[in-house]
């Protein structure tokens, strides 16, 4: 399987460990992610200003992927929603598509709408499949509880993102379950991290973030696992900035999914850039490694097979 990796603007410069760990994990699962330097911003930041300026960048990105015959693999939720939204708007509105295609034509690009936009969770859960992932795991967590924050723009509006049930999402929990991790049921799971308000109303943005941090801690989370890159920056950077240095040990540490599955696939913490998360220290890493146990599922299936043969 081959995909064009869409990193967006935040990941390469602010969370490079997210895409690095993702590439390492997918390589283990025989999926190649091609880096395309020509990709530009997804358009999301301009949405408050001008809807058509919001659509054009994603259209160009899709046209580039189409020209290379690749589907787009997205990490960031906001990029994902922008690409999905643009694709739908342009597929429905031929007039707008033709008008914007004239701009792309200057560079010899053309958007047809044939490209598929895949969120990494969909690729892992559906395209690769948990059935294929489970046997490749060398380890499984014996006892780990995390709070997932799904991020708004992967779930809603459901008719745009076409991801899964926006009220009761299951994919992330399932993907954590196969690693032996229990995903807590907590209030902030499907809610907003406050990122969209950062720089516009910092006070409100911080309030929304703090609400989630407190909620996840109260639910008993060892770690918070944000899916979206904006959520990641809120929890991993802003949370730390909001905390007094003397209180750093109260910070809720952040891990991303490829880092968790990467450990279970036998990859080293350094390969997964775990230490590059601002909220993670060596003690966290040692603790995580100590929690890794043999992949129990394998034994179970073996046992079952044995009973059959007997």
């Amino acid at each position, binding site marked *: 399987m081959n995909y064009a990796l869409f990193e967006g603007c935040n990941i390469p410069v602010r969370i490079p460990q997210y895409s690095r760990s993702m590439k390492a994990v997918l390589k283990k699962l025989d999926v190649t992610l091609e880096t395309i330097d020509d990709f530009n911003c997804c358009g999301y930041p301009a949405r408050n*200003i001008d*809807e058509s*300026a919001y659509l054009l960048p994603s259209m160009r990105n899709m046209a580039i992927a189409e020209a290379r015959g690749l589907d787009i693999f997205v990490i960031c939720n906001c990029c994902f929603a922008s690409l999905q939204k643009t694709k739908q708007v342009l597929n429905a509105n031929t007039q707008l598509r033709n008008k914007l295609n004239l701009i792309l034509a200057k560079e*010899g690009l053309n958007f047809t709408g044939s490209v598929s936009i895949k969120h990494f969770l969909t690729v892992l859960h559906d395209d690769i499949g948990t059935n294929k992932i489970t046997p490749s795991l060398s380890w499984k967590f014996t006892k780990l509880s995390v709070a997932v924050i799904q991020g*708004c723009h992967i*779930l809603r*509006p459901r008719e745009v993102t076409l991801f899964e049930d926006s009220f009761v999402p299951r994919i992330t929990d399932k993907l954590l379950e196969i690693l032996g991790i229990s995903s807590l049921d907590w209030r902030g799971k499907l809610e907003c991290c406050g990122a969209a308000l950062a720089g*516009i109303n910092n006070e409100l943005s911080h309030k929304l973030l703090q609400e989630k941090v407190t909620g996840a801690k109260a639910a008993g989370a060892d770690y918070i696992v944000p899916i979206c890159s904006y959520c990641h920056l809120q929890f991993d950077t*802003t949370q730390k900035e909001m905390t007094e240095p003397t209180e750093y040990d109260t910070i809720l540490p952040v891990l991303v999914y490829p880092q968790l599955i990467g450990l279970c696939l036998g990859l080293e913490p350094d390969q997964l850039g775990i230490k590059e998360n601002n909220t993670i220290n060596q003690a966290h890493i040692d603790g995580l490694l100590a929690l890794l146990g043999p992949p129990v599922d394998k034994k179970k299936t073996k046992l079952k097979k044995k009973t059959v043969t007997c």
Partner: protein
Amino acid sequence: MNFNILLSFSIIVCLLGLIFQFSKWFTAGISPLPLPSVGTRVLSCCRALFTTIFSAKILTLVRAFFVDVVCQKRIFDKSLLRWATHTLIATSFLLLFFLHALSGIVSDFLFSDFQPTRNPFLFLRNLFGLLTLIGIGLATYRRLACKSQRLKSAKTDWLLLVFIGSIICSGIFLEASKMSSYSTYQSMVEEYGALADEEEELALEAFWVHENGLVSANFKSAPATALVASGQEINADSCIECHASNRSGFMSYSIARSIGPVLTFGDGAVQVTFFYYLHLTLCLTFLCWIPFSKMFHMVSAPVSLLIKAVTKSQPSGLANSLNSQMIGLSACTHCGSCSVECSSNMFYESFGNEFILPSEKVQYLKKIAAKQLTEPQIIKELQEGLYVCTSCDRCTSICPSGINLKELFINARYFLTQNGPPEATLLSHFSFPLALANNFVDDHITALKEVTELFKASFTPLSAKAIPLTIGQADTFTENNSYKGCYSCQRCTNICPVVRSYSNPAESLGLLPHQIIYSLGIGDLDLALSSQMIWNCSTCYLCQEHCPNQVELCDIFYGLKNKAVQSIKTGANI
């Protein structure tokens, strides 16, 4: 005599220009903070230099000099074409400058047997000329081919290419006209030749006509082979020691051969003088122009690259950060690499504002730093360009001159907010990375307040409306009609995480989500736009997802924000 006066004049102009440019490094700057005094800046620079040279950092400096400056690794890593172009022009032109233009000093010193007419010098001069021209060809090709990728070329960019090309071409023509000129030939024979009689003279001339591209009235047609052969012997005795065959000057020789007769109308003396002065004037003008053009990057770009390597783009203190900012600004060559890879490139296509492209911003920031730009309209456009930036830092990582563009743009953004009303674009997600980076927090908040006030003043809030409200025109908001499905259940407001964050939401936010939808329902767009709720919407889409009647609240809020920005920008009355 004339030559010496002209040369001295040009050198003086060049030196004065260099001093002027160096002084700007320590006097000008763009920052929202007050600029430190010149003394502080020079001292900081000296201290930084001292601590670098007398520490282990000197190794980094030496390494950066070879890797980044000499080998231009930053360009090599990004594009082989650009690297080849730069290397061809820079290396060949510099070699011509030292070994040809400064031959009296450099070449005489390095080579005991130096004569411009001997080989390999004659050949190398032509070779370097050709390589420079190939480089110019590649640069022209790149500027034309990348035009569709938003590479902007200013008149000065083309002028520079034409300028360097003209210097090389005038030199080639000068050499070609000398080769074919009869008067040049005669004066050489008089000075160096020891010829016995007219017969020998004629034989030598025949050989030079045949072999070296000389055009002589004595040989209208090709000279006889026997005569050429005896001329060759005389040439071997008298000339060859100091004058290689003109064929090794392959470019000028080809020109002398092909258009020699045109070049040597008369005895060729006028043409030689003409090309001599043309070549000289171009070279000296170029020398004067260096400090005032982007050619100054020959001095500033290496300095900028070395600073980048040593400081890892984090100069210590405001003074040094401003010094390196000014060095950076003077090192920009308008190569446009940043704009070609700019992540905001499509916003440029949508908004048509050239300042969205980093390379174009830099050109005007130079003027801002020099306090030459005060036109409000341009400053406004520049502000928009500075805000419509995703902070992806690609421009900073790609810049071949190592300019810290990221830092420059941050400073410029907040410097300009002090000099006029801030951009409405501040209220967009472009502000997210700005907030994350925590730069000039107070300036950012002040600017936010100003923009918010601007919006408040532009639309009439509920408190200022005559009660009871009247029904306005139908269909004032055509972007999204789903508001018509609202049946007032208020589920949107009840589920909104923003509303629940305030103890008195109506006071803090103006209208609440359901009220905004009502406002559209009664045709009062102005009222809907007056609500601070739309700017405080966290875009989590919970309201839209939970609406039992498919009102697309979040999308409607986006539409309202677009409309509000548009009306502020154009000053239109909704």
